[in-house]
Every structure is written in structure tokens, then in C-alpha cells.
């Protein structure tokens, strides 16, 4: 019988109370009457009968409760709307940030068995760089010698101008070894990807796979695109396939893939020509550690074999999924933390709102209890109320999340092979469902249990009097303090991050950003390789641009400042050494000093506003026939020629020896937040190799608003080279602004969260005090009747508010300091205990406390003692 009694527990308590005893007796009689064999059947039948009917009874009750709840919630539309909006804000914020963090940090990359994909680098830790792209010969040795990989493939970014399809357009693509797309495990949506058989014919046939986006924009999604040709930088490629729309590799903006062919002509036999990105797919069962151990051995062997180029280097690898910049990770986690704060505040507010409502309904519950409703039915009814509200809030929250996701898209790093926006899928929706249910349950249960515990005759009296117990008051005050704590943490975080943003913006980039127009004309080497073809182009464009009204000066450079695109070379002595990869002997000592190389046309420094500290600028007299010269940055001069006049000194870099003719100020190349290597600027007219660094970025200093010059400059370039697309038109202010864009986005989102948090906390304080004042109106009335002054009554209300705000601020400040220390990496040197920020947060919290208590205090003072005490 114990078995049947246990089964009966599946029924709601109310049903069990009503019929349980009878059911038990009926079952017992059936049991007694049954034969031994029939007893087993009776047990099975009873289990099925109970499970089925218990579920139906629960469903019946839930249906009744939902109907009752909807009716009663519709009777109080203001309350219902407030609760739904508060829940939607909390759930929406959390859903959006969690989806984003899941998308960027957790979810597997969109390739089959992507956990087996690893990225490999050369490890130059001893030279100060932990991860350096390998050279083609090194990659080929790795490929030949390693045994842990199913495939080891290489790729590199490549861009070209697409012509013959309307206006010339610059496309971003990748050059990949034939097995790369096979290794990634994704099939082409149309046609095919590359095969090993393509390799020998690649040069003649030039197969190309294009992205879904390019297929739609340039080929109007025509199904017979396979076999058509595409001209890039004047070279024709045959399209062999189109990848699916959700295929992104190596980054989101890649529009085509062409075959990577190593050739001596491209310097691909040089082990210092380091430009390849290498990905591998581990064999089944091989761990990252196994592969790393093997690659380290291979790296050590290569370093022994080629000491000149590889001495002190090794190989390193890491799962591809982990390639999220630490700062991007921290920014996202910060937002997740903030959204949890908002959710907690929303939940505490919900709990308080629901508790107010429950307290207000105590008389109703007492009446229902008096006519036979059991406590569990009342608790169930209140839970139904809160779940209905939470689900309405959750639904609205999903709308809020979906609407706000595009605003957060800037926080998804472009360099990841994933879509810009997280998908709205079952994972996100089920996450929200769990969140919503927990919110509804947790914060509906608290008020329900507290109120129903005392639903008896005393509650009837209590309800009539409208008083609240001390315990309930304490719980509600604690909840409000928790809201204040969370909002203080958010305000302080926003303050610290604002300070950090200002500090980043204060960094001197080394040039003037105002009225500086920049644009790119990528010069294809096929046509513009020889100096005598390239220099006339520069002269024609620069002369005409500088003749435009409103232009002060103009110049070309390999890549703009703040745009790190490689070009780190070892600084060598001027002693020729044919055995050295750089053509010159190394400097004495163990150090391998590195510098960043850029080629420029005359007037570059004047144009971007980088000061010439000593010596002269590069000028028109610096040609391939004159001695090779260079302008170096201040840090270069300081490092290599300390306490000496660097002018006239010589060194070798980028395959040529050069004499220093000038020293210019340092500029930032790796963004505002990172230090940069010393710079070497060389004349464009002296560039006979290193075509990768051919000047392509035009900078124009204007005395008029820079963007007004764009049409005239475009016309000049079109006249000089009609086939060249003009791309990346932007002002320097935009370029530098883009540097701080993720910070700004994060700050805006956090700021939004902080404002919501503050408002909710103020609503929380207001709600609690207003309830308190109305519950104590008789007491206040008696006090006034006995001669209490308005000031005393106001102090009673404000004092309580001050107490809660004070407690919240103290705890919040301590937690905020901890949060600040955790965020230190993104604080850019700002002290996590910054006094201004903390003082500001305290002031804002005080204002919030006062604002939340104003109305209740006003009501308290206006209590009419006669009216208030009449029913007593």
C-alpha cells in the first residue's frame, strides 16, 4: 500500500486531500480481491491510471488558474504592464548578451568537427614575438614531417580589383592551398571546391571559388555561374564553385578563394619571407598536446638545419576556436556581467512588485482560504500569476533582444570565421525559456510563500488593517538594497570604462586627424611593377590633387598609420653578406632589432602632420639613381644611435642599405592602445622590390571639409588609371574613431544598462516606500494628530531611503572595486579605485534615492490625521 500512497503524491495536494483516502481504500479492496498473478497487473494498471489522471487533474487546475490569473491581471493593467516591461528588460538584455557571448566565445565554429582544427605559428618568443606566420619553405617542411594531422594547409589574405562588371570594385579574398576548403569540411553550394588535381594546372586555368555574397551581387545569383570568368587586377579566373551563404573563411569579408602556388619568383624559397597562415585538422584521437609536442620537435630540427634564419625559433599551435583577442573576450564578458546585474535588478523589482500585489490581496486570499481553498492552491495561483507575467515579459524580451542584437554586432570580431549576428535559433529561445521560467518561479514563489504562510483568520484581520509583518518588510528592504548594489556596480563600471575611453582618446597617434582625407588605389603589380610605370601615376595624381583648391598637400604611403599590415623587418648592418637572407650581416650582439618599413612619396610627414624633428623629408631628388636614404622614427634613432646625431648614419633593411636623412616623430600603427615598433620610411622612387609595400594609400591634407574633395579626387584617379578602383574612402578621424568603436559600443550598451538599472532601483525604492507609507498611514495620522511636524514625518521616509541607499552604496562600491580589478586589462591604466568615478557613483545613487523617496514623502506629509484614524 505504501506503493499506492506514493503514487497518490503525484496528484495535487487539494485533490489528494479530497479523494486520496477513498482511492486508497478502493485500491486496497481491489488488492485484496486480486489473485497473486493479478496483483502484478494491478500495480501496472494503478501506475498508468495515476500518471494519466494526475496529469489531467494538474492540467485542469492550471487551466482554471490561467483563466483566473488572466482575468485578474487584466483588471490591473498598470501593474501588469510594469511587471511585463521590467521582466522584458531583464530577460531581453540577458538574452542578447548571452547570445552574443555564446556566438563569439562558446559555440563551435561552423565547420564539421571544428574542435579538431588548430592554428599553427612559428614561435619567436626569444625574439619578442610569440606567434609569427611561417614562411612557405617552413610550412612545406611541417606538412612533410608532421604525422598528427589529417591535413595541414596554408592560406593568406589577398585583394584585387574586379573589373569588367560595372564600376571597378575592390574585393577581399584569400589565396589558399588546394586542400584548405576540403580540410574545413564544407562543400560548395554550387559547383565544387579545389582539388589536388587543380594544383599543376592552376596557373593556366586559374580556378576560383566565390562567396555566396559575391555570387549574388556580381552575378545576380545566376545558377550557371560555374565556368564563367572573373577578372581581378587584369588577370582572368574561372569560377569553379560558389560556397554556401554561411561559409566565412578566413574572415567574414572574404569574397573569393584562389589557389596558392609557391614560386621562387615570389621569394617563396626564403625562410624569412613569413606571410602564411597555417591551419591543421588533427587526426581523430590526437590531442592538441600531442600535436604540439611533435611540432616542437620538428621546429627544433628546422632551427638546427637553418640556424641563420631560424635560430632560437620553434613551432606553436592552439585550437582555432580560441583565437578571440583577449580584449574582445573581456568586453563581451563585461557585458554579460552587466546584463546579469540588470536581470537581478529586474528580478528583485519583480519580486517586490509581486509581493506588494500579494500583500494587497491578502484579504482575498483569506476569504478564499476560509471557503476551503488550500494553501497549495493559493501558492499555485500566485505562481501562475508570476509565470504568466514572466512569459509575457520573456516574449517581449526576445523581441527586445532581437531588435538590439544589430546594435551589438560591432562586438563580434571580423577576424572570426563566423556570421556577423548570432542566429535566432532553438538554442537562444530555449535559453530564454529557461531564464523566463526561473525568473517567474523564483520571484513568484517568494511572495507566494510569505503571504500564504499566514493565510488564516489573523490574515483576514491583518488584511483589513493593511499592515505588514517585520519579516516581509526586511525581505523587501533587502531586495531594494540588492538593486542599489547592482546599479552602483554598473554605474562605477561605466564610469571606469568612460575614463578608459577618454584616456585612449587622449593618446597622441603621432599625426593630426583633422581634415585628413584618405583613400586607397591598389596598384596591380602586373601593370605597375616597374618603377617607370608606377612613378608617373603617383606624379600625375599627386600634382593634380595638390592643385585642387582647398588641398594643402598630398602623399602616398604603403599603408596608413593605425593600419597594421606587416612590414616588420630585421635591422641589419651595412656589411654585405650574400649568405644572409636579408643580404647584409646581422648587427653585433644577440638582439635581432626589428623595425616597421613603409615607402612614401615626398611631403608625407607634412601631409599627415607628423613632425620632422631633425634632418629633411624625403624629396623628389631621392630616386633610384641617387643614394638610398631613409627617414626614421624618433624611437628608431633613440634605439640605434643613442646620444648621437643619427643623420648620415647607415643601416640595412628590406634588402638595401640606407642612409638616414631625417628623423620624424613616432606614430601608432598597432592601434591607440598598443606600442609600435620603430619606423623606417623609404622613398617610393627607390622601391625596386618588396612589391607588397608599394604605396597605395593616398592621404590629402585639406583646408576645406575633407570629404568635399572626394568627387574631384576620384575624377583625377579615373583619368590617370581608369581601371583602378578607389576604395576605403574615409577621413582619418573615421579611421581613428573606428579604433575606439568597440569600446564606444560597449560603453553605450553598459550605459544603457546602467540607466535601466538606476530607473529600476528608483522604482524599487519608490514602490517600497509608497507601500510602506500607505500601510502606515494610520500611524502617521496618529503622529500628526499628536503634533509631529512635517519635517519629522519627511525624515521618517527619507531616513529609511537613506539607510537603504547607504547600505547599497557601501556594498556596491566594494563589489564595483572588485569588478574594476577584474576589468583592469581594458581599463588602459585607469585606477579601479578612481576617486572621481566612485564619488560620481555615490552622488548619482544619492540622487536616485532622493528621487525615489520624493513622492512617498510628499504623500506621508499630506496624510489627513482625521481621515487616517477614522476606521480605528
Amino acid at each position, binding site marked *: 500500500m505504501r506503493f499506492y500512497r506514493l503514487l497518490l503524491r503525484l496528484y495535487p495536494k487539494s485533490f489528494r486531500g479530497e479523494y486520496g483516502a477513498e*482511492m486508497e481504500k478502493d485500491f486496497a479492496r481491489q488488492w485484496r480481491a486480486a489473485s497473486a498473478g493479478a496483483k502484478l497487473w494491478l500495480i501496472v*494498471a*494503478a501506475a498508468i*491510471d*495515476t500518471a*494519466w489522471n494526475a496529469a489531467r487533474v494538474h492540467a485542469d487546475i492550471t487551466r482554471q488558474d490561467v483563466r483566473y490569473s488572466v482575468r485578474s491581471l487584466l483588471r490591473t493593467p498598470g501593474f501588469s504592464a510594469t511587471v511585463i516591461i521590467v521582466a522584458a528588460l531583464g530577460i531581453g538584455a540577458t538574452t542578447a548578451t548571452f547570445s552574443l557571448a555564446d556566438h563569439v566565445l562558446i559555440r563551435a565554429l561552423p565547420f564539421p568537427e571544428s574542435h579538431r582544427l588548430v592554428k599553427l605559428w612559428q614561435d619567436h618568443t626569444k625574439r619578442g614575438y610569440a606567434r609569427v606566420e611561417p614562411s612557405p619553405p617552413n610550412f612545406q617542411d611541417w606538412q612533410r614531417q608532421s604525422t598528427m594531422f589529417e591535413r595541414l594547409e596554408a592560406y593568406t589574405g589577398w585583394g584585387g580589383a574586379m573589373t569588367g562588371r560595372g564600376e571597378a570594385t575592390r574585393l577581399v579574398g584569400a589565396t589558399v592551398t588546394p586542400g584548405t576548403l576540403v580540410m574545413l569540411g564544407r562543400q560548395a553550394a554550387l559547383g565544387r571546391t579545389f582539388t589536388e588535381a587543380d594544383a599543376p594546372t592552376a596557373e593556366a586555368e586559374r580556378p576560383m571559388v566565390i562567396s555566396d555574397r559575391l555570387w549574388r551581387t556580381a552575378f545576380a545569383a545566376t545558377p550557371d555561374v560555374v565556368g564563367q570568368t572573373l577578372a581581378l587586377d587584369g588577370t582572368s579566373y574561372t569560377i569553379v564553385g560558389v560556397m554556401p551563404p554561411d561559409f566565412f573563411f578566413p574572415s567574414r569579408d572574404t569574397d573569393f578563394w584562389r589557389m596558392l602556388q609557391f614560386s621562387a619568383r615570389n621569394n617563396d624559397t626564403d625562410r624569412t619571407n613569413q606571410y602564411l597562415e597555417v591551419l591543421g585538422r588533427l587526426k581523430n584521437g590526437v590531442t592538441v598536446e600531442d600535436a604540439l609536442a611533435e611540432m616542437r620537435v620538428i621546429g627544433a630540427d628546422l632551427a638546427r638545419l637553418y640556424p641563420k634564419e631560424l635560430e632560437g625559433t620553434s613551432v606553436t599551435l592552439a585550437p582555432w576556436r580560441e583565437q578571440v583577442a583577449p580584449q574582445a573576450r573581456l568586453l563581451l564578458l563585461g557585458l554579460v556581467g552587466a546584463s546579469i546585474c540588470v536581470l537581478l535588478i529586474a528580478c528583485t523589482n519583480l519580486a517586490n512588485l509581486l509581493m506588494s500585489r500579494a500583500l494587497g490581496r491578502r484579504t482575498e486570499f483569506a476569504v478564499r482560504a476560509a471557503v476551503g481553498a488550500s494553501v497549495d492552491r493559493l501558492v499555485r495561483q500566485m505562481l501562475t500569476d508570476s509565470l504568466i507575467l514572466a512569459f509575457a515579459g520573456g516574449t517581449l524580451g526576445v523581441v527586445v533582444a532581437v531588435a538590439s542584437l544589430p546594435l551589438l554586432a560591432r562586438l563580434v570580431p571580423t577576424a572570426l570565421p563566423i556570421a556577423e549576428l548570432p542566429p535566432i535559433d532553438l538554442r537562444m529561445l530555449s535559453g530564454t525559456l529557461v531564464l523566463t521560467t526561473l525568473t517567474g518561479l523564483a520571484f513568484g514563489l517568494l511572495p507566494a510563500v510569505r503571504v500564504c504562510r499566514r493565510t488564516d483568520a489573523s490574515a483576514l484581520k491583518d488584511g483589513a488593517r493593511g499592515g505588514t509583518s517585520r519579516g516581509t518588510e526586511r525581505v523587501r528592504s533587502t531586495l531594494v538594497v540588492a538593486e542599489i548594489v547592482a546599479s552602483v556596480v554598473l554605474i562605477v563600471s561605466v564610469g571606469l570604462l568612460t575614463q578608459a575611453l577618454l584616456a585612449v582618446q587622449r593618446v597622441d597617434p603621432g599625426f593630426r586627424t583633422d581634415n585628413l582625407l584618405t583613400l586607397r588605389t591598389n596598384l596591380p603589380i602586373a601593370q605597375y611593377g616597374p618603377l617607370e610605370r608606377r612613378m608617373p601615376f603617383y606624379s600625375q595624381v599627386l600634382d593634380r590633387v595638390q592643385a585642387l583648391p582647398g588641398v594643402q598637400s598630398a602623399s602616398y604611403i604603403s599603408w596608413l598609420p593605425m593600419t597594421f599590415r606587416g612590414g616588420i623587418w630585421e635591422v641589419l648592418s651595412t656589411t654585405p653578406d650574400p649568405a644572409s637572407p636579408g643580404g647584409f650581416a646581422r648587427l653585433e650582439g644577440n638582439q635581432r632589432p626589428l623595425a616597421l618599413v613603409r615607402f612614401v612619396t615626398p611631403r608625407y610627414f607634412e601631409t599627415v602632420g607628423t613632425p620632422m624633428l631633425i634632418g629633411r623629408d624625403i624629396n623628389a631628388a631621392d630616386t633610384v639613381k641617387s643614394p638610398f636614404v631613409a627617414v626614421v622614427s624618433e624611437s628608431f634613432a633613440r634605439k640605434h644611435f643613442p646620444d648621437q646625431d643619427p643623420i648620415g648614419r647607415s643601416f640595412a633593411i628590406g634588402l638595401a642599405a640606407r642612409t638616414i636623412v631625417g628623423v620624424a616623430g613616432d606614430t601608432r600603427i598597432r592601434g591607440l592602445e598598443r606600442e609600435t615598433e620603430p619606423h623606417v620610411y623609404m622613398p617610393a622612387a627607390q622601391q625596386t622590390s618588396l612589391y607588397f609595400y608599394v604605396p597605395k594609400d593616398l592621404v590629402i591634407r585639406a583646408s576645406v571639409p575633407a570629404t568635399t574633395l572626394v568627387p574631384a579626387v576620384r575624377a583625377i584617379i579615373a583619368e590617370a588609371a581608369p581601371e583602378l578602383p578607389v576604395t576605403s574612402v574615409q577621413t582619418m578621424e573615421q579611421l581613428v574613431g573606428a579604433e575606439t568603436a568597440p569600446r564606444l559600443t560597449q560603453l553605450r550598451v553598459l550605459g544603457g544598462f546602467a540607466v535601466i538599472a538606476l530607473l529600476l532601483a528608483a522604482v524599487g525604492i519608490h514602490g517600497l516606500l509608497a507601500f510602506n507609507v500607505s500601510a502606515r498611514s494610520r500611524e502617521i495620522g496618529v503622529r500628526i494628530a499628536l503634533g509631529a511636524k512635517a519635517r519629522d514625518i519627511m525624515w521618517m521616509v527619507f531616513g529609511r531611503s537613506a539607510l537603504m541607499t547607504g547600505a547599497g552604496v557601501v556594498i556596491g562600491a566594494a563589489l564595483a572595486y572588485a569588478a574594476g580589478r577584474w576589468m583592469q586589462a581594458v581599463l588602459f591604466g585607469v585606477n579601479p579605485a578612481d576617486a572621481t568615478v566612485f564619488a560620481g557613483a555615490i552622488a548619482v545613487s544619492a540622487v536616485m534615492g532622493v528621487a525615489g523617496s520624493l513622492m512617498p514623502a510628499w504623500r506621508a506629509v499630506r496624510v489627513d490625521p482625521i481621515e487616517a484614524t477614522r476606521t480605528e
Partner: protein
Amino acid sequence: MTTEPRPEALLPLPPAVFHILLALADEDRHGYGIIQEVLSRTDGDVRLGPGTLYRSIQRMLADDLIVEISDRPAPELDDERRRYYRIAPFGRAVARAEASRLHDLVRMARASGFHPKKA
């Protein structure tokens, strides 16, 4: 003003509810009595489980098909802890309406050549 519910509004009746109404048609019974009566009327074909029985009773009470009665049979015949149920006038009307519905169905089945098996 409340309107009297129409018996047809509850049709078709769940089989268990119809069986309970039939079992109570001529005599007030307690739960186990209903189970036994249904078992004997159907020659053992229909055995109501306690869950089905009491869930049906709960709904039938709410729908005014049956009432719980306080007058009991003679103590020697009664287990005094038992609760007895009686069919209500509305319950009779509903049972009649259901019987009529089933009768019409059987008539239609006969007209289409589907004759019930002889017992």
C-alpha cells in the same frame, strides 16, 4: 442572470462519465460500489481505475451531474467513512441526451449495413 446549461453542451460524454451515470441511475453508491457496478454491467470489460473514477467524479460534481449525499444506508451495511454519490436531475437529462445520441448513431450504422454483433 444565469442561464440553465443545456445537456447537449456536455456531449459527447467521456465513456467513464457515462458509465458512472448509468451505475448511479437506480441507486446511490460509493466509489468502490460504482467500480463494481460498472464491472458487473459490462461483464468485466470495463474496470475503472481509482484515478479515472475520482477525477470523473470531481468534474461531474462541478458540472452538477451528480451530488454527494449526506444520508447513509443503515450503519451495518455501510463503511461509515464512505462518501456516497447520487445522480442529479441534470445528470439524468445528460445521460438521456447521450443515450439518444448513441441510439441515433447506432441507427445510422444499421442503415449503412453495420449491424452490431449479437451478444
